[in-house]
């Protein structure tokens, strides 16, 4: 039976890639469940038009994780059409 998804494995989040336009700086953060662990990534400088989808490296290890983006200054905008998150399982799980 082919394995679908993950079952408690420890994951290594190693990069993210966005298709984003806008203005200002998009601030990216990796977060675990309940925000116990967080990792701020390099800001993505946004432009109204772009021909690239920049890859941002990360080094975040946790059982489950998500990516959060925000802007903090007036008149900053973002328009995201694609998010790719690169992960790899590196351990089978946490001991009980």
């Amino acid at each position, binding site marked *: 039976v082919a394995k679908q998804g993950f079952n408690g494995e420890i994951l290594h989040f190693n990069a993210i890639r966005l298709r984003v336009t806008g203005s200002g700086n998009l601030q990216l953060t990796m977060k675990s469940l309940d925000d116990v662990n967080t990792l701020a990534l390099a800001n993505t400088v946004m432009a109204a038009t772009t021909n690239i989808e920049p890859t941002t490296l990360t080094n975040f290890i*946790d059982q489950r994780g998500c990516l959060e983006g925000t802007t903090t200054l007036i008149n900053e905008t973002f328009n995201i059409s694609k998010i790719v998150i690169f992960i790899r399982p590196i351990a089978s799980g946490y001991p009980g």
Partner: protein
Amino acid sequence: MGVYVLQADQVFTNVGGWYGELNHSCPLNVPTGGGSDSEILAGINSANSLLNKLLGGRTCGTPDTVGSEVHIRFGYGLSTNNISLDGNPAISFDNLVPGFKISSAQLQITVSLQATFAPTTANLERGQLDTKDIKANLSPYTSIFATVSDDWDYSNPTLGPTIFQVIQDGFGLDFVPSVTGDTPFFVKAFNAFVIGLYDIVADGFSLDTIGPATNGDTISVSATSGLDTINKVQIQYNDGTTVTIDVTSFVTQTPTSLTFILPFLGFTGTAQLFMQGTSFSGSVLLGSLEVLVENGSGIYEIVPGKTNDTIYVNSGDGPTTQDVKIPNPRWKTGYIGG
């Protein structure tokens, strides 16, 4: 009980008042436009008869009644050091203790007539300590140099002088020539002040609310006794704006506690609170309160492509709008892993 002395620091209105230096019958150094408010205040407050003064009268050499009358009203700021208690350095109304009450008020001023020829009649100067329609005449002018005074008219208003009225009204001076003929003359006035007796009401009134307060806030006053006899609270702002809260608008009222809701005052800044009651005459100074006007509310409108919020704010020039950022817009992916 003590003695207070109050000196003007504002010119409310000025019609025909000059500022300059007198040399016998002719004024010298009369500036165009009559002089600034600060110059006129310096003249009217000075005790030195030799320096420049507030002047009024006919122009020298061209006697005419045109422009010869002077109507000027002086007042007091709430935050300026303008009241001296028992000979001590002057302090501001903002710094007077709660319960400050006056029991008398008298305007004193020194005037001097300068004329080429002594007029046969000279009822030139009138003082006006309040705003009643019939002005109280100062003592008729009878000599070249005289100190005149005007007591507060206790019959009008019937409540007698109050510290609230003194601050609200200030005092006025009129120089109305009544001499016959065309004799050139000038009047100079200086060393003006209001003097009277004051008390500190012994019931220990205390303004418990610490500002800044906004309209709709509950304002609390406490005392050892006597608050059940209060029937009016008056709030005055620096620019003379006055709001009266009647006894019917009090929220709670006991001998030791009184609360009321601060109404919309239409100004932002420091205001003075006064109380009137039946257990004492006049009004009692309660203290100063920092007042803020709430920012106005509006209807939220969705505007496509707008990248900020617009809010109403109160500035010194009145309500205006200000663009602010949308509070940190954010997005979040779903959790990966399981």
